[in-house]
């Protein structure tokens, strides 16, 4: 493996949930420790089972791993870090300020960016503490800060002014106000990250076009902020040997190899490793060691074809959506779970039934747009490009609100417009324009604001409504986007996940966030299911079997409606293949109805 050779001090693994970052980080740490190095493994995965893997109980304190000489580990729970951060700010005023005021402050501090920055704050010292750096030759992280976190820490001027004066009056530093580290420490941390001699970043992806496109974006973003030494690790590649007796496995293999052959240009230049798919999940040091060794340690392959999953196909959900005659369908989920593909599949299936449909995608590659444009009767396709929208919004604000400002005023406004909130707002505005159409036809979107964003925006909306009422601007009924999204007759939210531990947890987090905003997700879709495809290959059967407990968790704990979409043998592009996602497959059609 290239990425382990001549390993520098800091190794970071980044990629979307479910690609195997934690497994690779564990395997790398074990490999280095067994090569005689003193290694610290740091996990911030919310689903972390690193403690379980090594048979030790971990906390946010460094703990020695007895089963692997020279290895120590610690776990940071990002949610707990964010909660601790909120408590530092809100705790002292609880009971002193009115409860409604306190609740408003807490919502301000409940966003993803707070969580991310609080977690980064927790591990900053690991990059800069001299005592620690003498104790360990390598520190392996199963996560990496995003470009957005690093940019916030680099905010020019505002940041130093903020720390010098102890007053947050400069700019968009909301998420940073409660941090207790010193500015020097952040600066040194960011320096360490951008030093190619000290830091190596592994972009972890699956051999799928969407997954590779996703890490290509991460690559560009982290390169732009100085994370210069990057490797590509393609995890879970299906070995050619599995193709022998299973046409489905052969097709998957072909699909993966094509995705790798057509690698985005920016990734093709990076050093690349391929880690083969294993039949087992990461449990025990032997399994961890086997991940990078090429041996199938203790592979347990089910002897017979397992009983199929008793869950309905996507077509059942489309039937219910179609029955309403119109409405907004929002497909939500973390990056890389297949939102765009599923939104397109639902839109194409609705259009094929003769219904008027508008599909809006934020897919920057817009490959669906190209494939579908004009190809499907009754289907209108449009695209929200986050970058273009943000730029348009920025220019619009500067041209209107900034018009009457002097030079210093403009400079202040421009600095605030560089904040990460700006993109969220800009995309939301584009989103709102399209949502208004949903009254008479179907609008299917693969993008949506989080519950947190909606709550913050609605707070502003409520304020504006109140003012309008006071000014006597009556007779006009205000409908905020929030009110529309909360109405189940107008909006159906579909949460997409993969049948893997981290993606299911992330999807559950998304659902909790929406519920906080009074929005009840309508259905869950488990995408790219091997179990639903009923493969014959022993390796794929073993993987399919590991999906079962996760699908059961979704049915029992999370979803009021569920559909499972099989992993297709071909990339689901083009209306014909997309319809196949929604339609019952021959295998699944034979299933009994769900018992729940």
């Amino acid at each position: 493996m290239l990425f382990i050779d001549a390993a520098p001090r800091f190794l970071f693994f980044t990629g979307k949930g479910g690609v195997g970052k934690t497994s690779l980080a564990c395997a790398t740490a074990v490999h280095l420790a067994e090569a005689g190095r003193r290694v610290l493994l740091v996990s911030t995965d919310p689903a972390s089972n690193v403690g379980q893997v090594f048979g030790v109980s971990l906390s946010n304190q460094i703990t020695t791993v007895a089963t692997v000489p020279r290895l120590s580990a610690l776990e940071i729970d990002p949610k707990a870090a964010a909660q601790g951060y909120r408590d530092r700010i809100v705790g002292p005023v609880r009971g002193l300020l009115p409860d409604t005021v306190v609740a408003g402050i807490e919502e301000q501090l409940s966003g993803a960016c707070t969580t991310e920055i609080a977690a980064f704050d927790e591990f900053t010292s690991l990059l800069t503490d001299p005592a620690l750096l003498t104790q360990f030759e390598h520190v392996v992280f199963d996560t990496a800060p995003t470009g957005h976190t690093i940019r916030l820490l680099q905010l020019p001027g505002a940041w130093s002014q903020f720390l010098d004066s102890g007053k947050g009056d400069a700019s968009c530093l909301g998420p940073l106000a409660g941090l207790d580290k010193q500015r020097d420490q952040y600066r040194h941390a960011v320096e360490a990250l951008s030093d190619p001699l000290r830091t190596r970043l592994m972009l972890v992806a699956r051999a799928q076009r969407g997954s590779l496109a996703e890490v290509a974006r991460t690559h560009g973003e982290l390169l732009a902020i100085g994370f210069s030494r990057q490797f590509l690790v393609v995890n879970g590649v299906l070995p050619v040997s599995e193709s022998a007796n299973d046409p489905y496995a052969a097709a998957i293999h072909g699909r993966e190899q094509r995705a790798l052959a057509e690698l985005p240009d920016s990734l093709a230049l990076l050093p690349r490793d391929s880690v083969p798919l294993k039949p087992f999940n990461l449990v025990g040091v032997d399994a961890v060691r086997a991940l990078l060794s090429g041996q199938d340690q203790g592979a347990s392959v089910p002897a017979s074809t397992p009983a199929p999953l008793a869950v309905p196909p996507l077509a059942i959900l489309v039937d219910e959506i179609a029955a309403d005659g119109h409405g907004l369908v929002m497909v939500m989920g973390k990056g890389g779970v297949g939102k765009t593909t599923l939104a397109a599949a639902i839109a194409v299936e609705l259009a094929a039934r003769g219904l008027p449909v508008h599909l809006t995608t934020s897919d920057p590659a817009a490959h669906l747009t190209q494939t579908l444009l004009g190809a499907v009767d009754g289907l209108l396709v449009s695209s929200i490009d986050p970058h273009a929208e943000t730029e348009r919004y920025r220019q619009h604000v500067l041209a209107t609100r900034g018009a009457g400002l002097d030079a210093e005023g403009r400079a202040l406004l421009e600095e605030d417009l560089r904040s990460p909130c700006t993109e969220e707002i800009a995309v939301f505005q584009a989103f709102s324009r399209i949502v208004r159409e949903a009254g008479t036809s179907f609008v299917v979107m693969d993008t949506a604001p989080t519950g947190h964003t909606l709550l913050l925006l609605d707070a502003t909306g409520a304020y504006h409504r109140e003012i309008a009422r006071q000014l006597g601007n009556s007779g006009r009924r205000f409908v905020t986007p929030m009110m529309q999204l909360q109405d189940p007759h107008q909006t159906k939210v579909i949460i997409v996940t993969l049948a893997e531990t981290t993606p299911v947890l992330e999807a559950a987090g998304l659902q909790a966030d929406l519920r906080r905003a009074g929005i009840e997700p309508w259905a869950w879709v488990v995408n790219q299911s091997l179990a639903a495809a009923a493969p014959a290959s022993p390796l794929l059967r073993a993987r399919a079997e590991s999906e079962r407990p996760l699908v059961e968790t979704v049915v029992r704990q999370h979803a009021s409606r569920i559909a499972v979409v099989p992993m297709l043998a071909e990339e689901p592009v083009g209306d014909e293949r997309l319809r196949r996602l929604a339609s019952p497959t021959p295998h699944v059609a034979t299933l009994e109805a769900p018992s729940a």
Partner: protein
Amino acid sequence: MSHIQIFDPALCCSAGVCGVEVDQALVSAATDVGWAQQRGAAIERFNLAQQPLAFALNPVVSGFLQRSGAEALPLVLVDGEVALAGRYPNRGELARWASLPGVTDLTVASGGCCGGSGCGCR
């Protein structure tokens, strides 16, 4: 020189560019405060989302929040006493409170919601 304190509602940033629509009043307030600071005025801004303790520990501000709630912010104190509530001060007001030398009354020119101290718009 007088000490001016502005207690903001819970904002992500002081120009309010994070709202559904950028509030012109917030953009103007941010630049007016910057303008007055450049000329030597002592102005502090406190954001409810970032420094709630500053609100809770000041009896005037805390009492105001108990009575009128967060939606009645911003609140402006000059030397600890309420000078303005419910809207942001304009340059003329800031200049007067801070006794900025050589700045004449800009109240009318910068066109606040109604001019003068205290807002009679309701």
